[in-house]
């Protein structure tokens, strides 16, 4: 089934895969976040080991017009290290929870990366020139004997091999008691928000020693806790608006002009629960794992365990579109609870034109939904279908009855192979899909 992603003559093809082929996956190599920058030229991944790897797209070659530029490693650096909170005797994981790029304002690139407790602003800059001819030191850096210096010369900039440097420019620490789950850069390009389970803070990119607390849902008595914040995002155009989702399946839109503390929402989005589908796990599967504004700012999308919902910001009582990702798992919720899969936090993303949405599933499957044609497709990120420019074959899960050829039954799904993180190029039909420790890049094949 072709056509999902922006046109009828559209077909997804394999482009690249990054990461080790080894079956034994080191925990530290598991990718925990994927993000394109604003132009799509750079693609950043963060992993459980606290490392950030940035890929850069090669310039399109005139010799091979059909093959879009490939992504190659641009920079790798250790963003976060494991830490220890001595007061609480707790280890702070170095896992990168989120990466968010800042819009490019000069030759350097900036991104925010965060683990559970600390957010860091990284500057990634290129150096392709080196000064030679210093007066006080040799080329290898050793200090020259002052008595040997008889003349003065002006150092000259000489070309050198490109070196990409990443340096931490700001460290925003000690503002979150609970685990940070989201960061989002504001459209004013000066501020950003960070959200943990119970609080949301607003930062200025230049100021690290304080932040504003704009949402606080911690009850006076922790015993009365009923819901936590699961995701938060700034509106793409209105710098005073942001949303946050909760574990109860609700979304609150807040306007920072209304009050300093946005505990009272401006809009409250909730779909009434279907009483017929109630089970032990109704509350878990209604917990929202991701919320994303559309590029237009008119819609937002939420991901819960079994579905993706598109909401119109002007309508609070129900979503305008609901897409079932893997409804066949509804009867397996108990097993998924036992093996902890029910707690997996899937992300979702829009394409550049907001006409399609994508999210991940199990067995290295990921799903795309075309909002206009209402068509959906299931694709798989696997090494088997990883020949260059090989077309991806649509996959289908057999939900019952006779299993057709090429279908896979629900019980055969590998729940250890989960695609939690996906990203869509902001302008083109290029997608990045993180499958455990591998990063797959797929492109369209223009007909």
């Amino acid at each position: 089934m072709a056509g999902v992603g922006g046109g009828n003559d559209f077909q997804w093809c394999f482009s690249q895969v990054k990461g080790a082929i080894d079956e034994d996956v080191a925990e530290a190599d598991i990718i925990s976040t994927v993000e394109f920058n604003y132009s799509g030229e750079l693609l950043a991944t963060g992993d459980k080991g606290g490392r950030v790897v940035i890929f850069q797209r090669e310039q399109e070659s005139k010799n091979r017009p059909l093959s879009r530029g490939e992504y190659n490693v641009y920079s790798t650096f250790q963003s976060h290290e494991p830490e220890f909170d001595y007061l609480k005797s707790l280890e702070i994981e170095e896992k990168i929870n989120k990466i968010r790029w800042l819009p490019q304002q000069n030759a350097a690139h900036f991104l925010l990366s965060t683990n559970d407790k600390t957010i860091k602003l990284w500057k990634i800059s290129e150096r392709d020139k080196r000064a030679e001819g210093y007066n006080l030191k040799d080329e290898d850096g050793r200090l020259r004997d002052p008595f040997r210096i008889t003349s003065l010369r002006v150092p000259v900039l000489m070309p050198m091999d490109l070196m990409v440097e990443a340096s931490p420019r700001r460290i925003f620490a000690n503002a979150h008691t609970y685990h940070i789950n989201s960061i989002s850069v504001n459209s004013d390009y000066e501020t950003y928000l960070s959200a943990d389970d119970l609080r949301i803070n607003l930062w200025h990119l230049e100021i690290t020693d304080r932040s504003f607390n704009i949402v606080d849902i911690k009850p006076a008595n922790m015993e009365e806790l009923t819901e936590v914040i699961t995701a938060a995002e700034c509106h793409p155009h209105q710098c005073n608006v942001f949303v946050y989702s909760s574990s109860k399946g609700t979304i609150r839109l807040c306007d920072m002009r209304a009050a300093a503390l946005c505990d009272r929402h401006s809009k409250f989005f909730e779909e009434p629960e279907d009483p017929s589908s109630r089970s032990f796990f109704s509350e878990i599967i209604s917990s929202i794992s991701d919320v994303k504004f559309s590029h237009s700012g008119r819609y937002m999308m939420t991901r819960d365990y079994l579905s993706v919902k598109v909401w119109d910001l002007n309508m609070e009582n129900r979503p305008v579109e609901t897409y079932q990702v893997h409804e066949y798992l509804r009867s397996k919720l108990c097993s998924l609870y036992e093996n902890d899969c029910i707690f997996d936090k899937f992300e979702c993303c829009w394409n550049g034109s907001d006409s399609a949405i994508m999210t991940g599933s199990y067995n290295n499957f990921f799903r795309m939904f075309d909002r206009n044609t209402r068509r959906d497709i299931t694709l798989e990120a696997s090494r088997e279908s990883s020949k260059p420019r090989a077309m991806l074959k649509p996959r289908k899960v057999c939900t019952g009855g006779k299993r057709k050829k090429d279908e896979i039954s629900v019980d055969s799904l590998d729940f250890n192979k989960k695609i939690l993180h996906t990203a869509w190029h902001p302008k083109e039909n290029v997608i990045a899909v993180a499958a455990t420790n591998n990063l797959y890049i797929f492109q369209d094949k223009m007909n």
Partner: protein
Amino acid sequence: MEYKVEAHRIMSISLGKIYNSRVQRGGIKLHKNLLVSLVLRSARQVYLSDYYSGACLNAQSEREGNEWDITDSEREKFPPSTTECDRVESPEEPQLTEQPEASEKEREYRENDAEKSERVDCTSTSEQESNQNSSLDSVSTETTTESPSDTTVAERDSTPVVVNGESHQPPKTHVCSSNRKRSAEESESGDAPQKRTKVASSNTKEDEEEAEEMDTGNVSNLITIFGSSFSGLLSKDGTKPEAEAEESGQICCDQMLKNLNPWSTAIVAF
């Protein structure tokens, strides 16, 4: 019946997850534990509603004595907890009809039938599972303090339980399915006198009475603690011992709380 088994299994799994979360790298994850506690609560509600909608059996009084002896020996074993719980549940209701007693406190909460019955349920289970010493003295003391519960209990029995099952489910489940954890934590806590019915009272009615008494004493605490989804799994460890000093009836609650001590302490530490 199947629902009960399933609900019980889910409760066991949930408690196991909560227990394991304490040793996970990166600290306790609030979101996940909140969700697990919600599942625990739902399972408990089903478990108890199933019980009250007709799972009770008749004439269990003579059985009860035997059961309590048996459960003593099995107290420290993990697997038999399921059967323990089931056995424990059944005799409760007939006992209620036989031994209606109510203190003034009970009257306050009379409107909540479920709570009362559940408390009894929970209490007896906890008592069975308790590894601490308790004496018949405390039992008899409570028996005397609790007098006018006849009418109220009768009322309660007649109405099907709309579950505010939270109040006792955690203790019951906890007791039934977390023996390992409990024994480890009881060694920590051990201060307050733990009521137990190791000595199968010659008078089973007494057991019932003491259970009810303990429950009534616990009511205010239990309601506070189990009143909403998350609250059931947090303890007021700091305040608990003082209250217990006043009323032995709060022992049940305390015992359960101490069982959840490490996790709740961690949460409080947040």
